[in-house]
């Protein structure tokens, strides 16, 4: 499946969707006014990837911060991956947060409480 790379902008994160490796990466900040416009193509890609996924799918989320409209879109990504997990495919969420960044740590906990996916919280040193 086609690999999609989007470079970061002041308001949107770096994104890499690698269908060959089964890896999704979202890194940087996510604060667009219109998050749906930014995330819809990514969610559509994951939807399509779900038709013929790898045995193992990894999603790395390493966000500095994100706005509330992005939070819903990120949840939608997790929901798509949750469908794969329910079908028996392995899915791993790696949630990165900077040392002492309680807000980002708690955001990871929020998603863990809502979504049924294996979550690994990874602290990064400043």
């Amino acid at each position, binding site marked *: 499946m086609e690999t999609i790379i989007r470079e970061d902008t002041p308001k949107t994160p770096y994104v890499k969707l690698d269908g060959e490796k089964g890896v999704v990466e979202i890194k940087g900040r996510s604060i667009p006014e219109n998050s749906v416009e930014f995330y819809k193509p990514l969610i559509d890609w994951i939807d399509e990837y779900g038709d013929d996924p790898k045995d193992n799918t990894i999603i790395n989320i390493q966000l500095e911060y994100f706005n*509330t409209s992005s939070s819903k879109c990120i949840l939608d990504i997790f929901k798509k991956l949750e469908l794969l997990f329910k079908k028996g495919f392995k899915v791993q969420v790696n949630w990165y947060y900077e040392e002492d960044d309680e807000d980002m740590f708690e955001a990871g906990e929020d998603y863990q409480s809502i979504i049924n996916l294996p979550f690994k919280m990874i602290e990064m040193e400043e």
Partner: protein
Amino acid sequence: MQDIKMGFNLEEWYAHKLQGDVIFKYTGSISPEMITHALDAVENSPLLTKERLQTRKKVYNVFVECMQNLYHHVDAPPAGLSAGGSPNFGIACLVHDGSFFRVTTGNFILRSKVNFIKDRIEQLNSLSDEEVRMLYRDILGNEALSEKGGGGLGMLDIVRKTGNKLEYFLYPYDGEHIFFSLDVYIS
């Protein structure tokens, strides 16, 4: 020229809100481009770069959420306002005020929205930290995005991140408009 109506003086209000070390101030049309520039200015402010990472990120995050709340929810101001006539007119400032950072926003809303805003803020202010957290998770997990993209989480996120109550005033301005003043304190 001064914008004074029904005892409310916009210039005096603004001058009062600028007390402290001003990191950012703006009066005019709130647009995505303006928010990008504002954030850039805030991120490069020497008053913030010396703060610890968690405080800095909290300030950026809350500031963006406040600005985007303005962008999505302002009503057109009264006609003839000397401070500006753009339909997306708003005022915003970020000030280092004693031991706090304060984000202040001011904008006109239609009188018909007053009760909704008042009830919403009073409800959020009545919640404990744990209740705020639970409500946030509940809305995140269960409610669809609103047309404006916020999903009803904006104010809640601000309260959660700051751990402080929202301070607000609704100043009657004319028969149609109310001036909505909001102060968010980040410690």
